[in-house]
């Protein structure tokens, strides 16, 4: 019964959501809407679980003095501080939470992302080798698209943006469509296998 009941629930609700997509009857929609609200509530609880998990893992790291434990200290302080600021001071404009979000978290997050530019440049110099015809085609396409997407490309050659658009709209799109159709068929197949109880990995265990 430990497996049969979850499988039955999955089959019933999974099938119902397919019906809900294609049948716009108010009775079906009403049940569909209720189920979606349940799903949103369940997903919301995963955030509580996530916070508890971070606190537990990093708390253990500090108490056991595991590798890189000092990094766990500001993480937990930051977590507790932002939680406290949000819960007790609110999250709207002018609050401590919002100020820290806009003037501390936002620039730090942007900085981390912008570091990519430096690493990509380094990787381009050290690792991108045109050893085969395929690598040569990839390099040529990359150079054309990179130049075609920025103003300097049109300054170098006025037809470059058009060539870049053609690469994006014809060969790139053909390959992308093939991948998307393949992935979609795979998703449909997996979805059906889950609903029919053939795919049981999501239940965990052995």
């Amino acid at each position, binding site marked *: 019964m430990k497996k049969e009941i979850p499988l039955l629930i999955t089959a019933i609700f999974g099938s119902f959501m397919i019906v809900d997509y294609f049948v716009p009857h108010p009775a079906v929609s009403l049940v569909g809407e209720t189920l979606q609200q349940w799903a*949103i509530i369940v997903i919301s609880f995963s955030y509580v679980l996530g916070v508890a998990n971070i606190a537990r893992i990093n708390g253990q790291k500090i108490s056991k003095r595991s590798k890189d434990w000092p990094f766990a200290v500001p993480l937990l302080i930051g977590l507790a501080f932002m939680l406290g600021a949000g819960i007790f001071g609110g999250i*709207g*404009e002018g609050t401590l939470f919002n100020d820290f979000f806009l003037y501390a978290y936002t620039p730090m*997050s*942007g900085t981390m992302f912008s570091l990519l530019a430096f690493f990509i440049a380094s990787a381009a110099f050290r690792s991108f080798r045109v050893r085969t015809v395929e690598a040569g085609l990839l390099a040529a396409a990359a*150079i054309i698209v990179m130049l075609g997407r920025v*103003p*300097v490309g049109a300054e170098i050659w006025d037809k470059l943006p058009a060539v870049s658009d053609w690469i994006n709209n014809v060969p790139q799109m053909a390959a992308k469509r093939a991948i998307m159709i393949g992935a979609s068929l795979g998703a449909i197949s997996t979805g059906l296998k889950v609903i029919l109880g053939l795919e049981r990995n999501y239940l965990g265990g052995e």
Partner: protein
Amino acid sequence: MEKFDRRYIFLAILLLVLVPLLFPLGLPIRVSHEVQSAYDAVARVPDGSKVYFAADYDPATMPELHPMALAALDQLFSKNCKVIGACLWPACPPLLEDAFRRIGEERYGKKYGVDFVNLGYKPGNEVAIVSVGRSIRATFPTDFYGTPIDSIEVMKGVDSITGLAILVNISAGYPGTKEWVQQVQSRYHIELVAGCTAVSTPEYYPYFQSGQLVGLIGGMAGAAEYEKLVKRPGTASRGMDAQSLGHLALIAFIVLGNVVYFTSKKKTP
């Protein structure tokens, strides 16, 4: 090659990005078909219509996506549209709030609750998207500040997304444009304009070509083009010179790396 200090590369990138930001080159910006289509689609919306603004990004992608959010809101508020904004990314509501305040309040004198509303964040990814399509009221019973939706003027008469004129989505990834197309556009046939990061733009070209997206704003370049169309040059326009030189530097590094590699290979017996 292994002995080459990569800090020289970092220094070159820093200078090539920093210098044009301080001393702009003023390279002309060409408007692409995808961005022109986005602008035209919003321009077709009747003045004063209610629209849905789905902001799905976070501070990491803010330099790329915030300028296009500001430009899109600029065009919407210039048409006196009533904007209903919401987020599927937990770190996005304050960014949406910032965009509303800067463009709605400061530039156009619009009022919160009357001309625009920030419904805040809703977890659930695709489930939340389907739920928004079916009933915005059921999905967001309160706004970002906890005010009941029934007491917000701009939300009067709004329930399903089908009652709105257009859906504008600014997305950094998952959940985002792809999910809005799959769960809402294909189901409710609302016009959908998308703005996304440059790296994810190729993924959405098929949706644009099929007409499921009526406009596509890709990366900082797309944002700069949109700024040009709304005649409000902002940070994206200023960043295009830096991006131009950055791209040139990357190409130079690829070429140089290969020249050094093949030259040293020939010399090796």
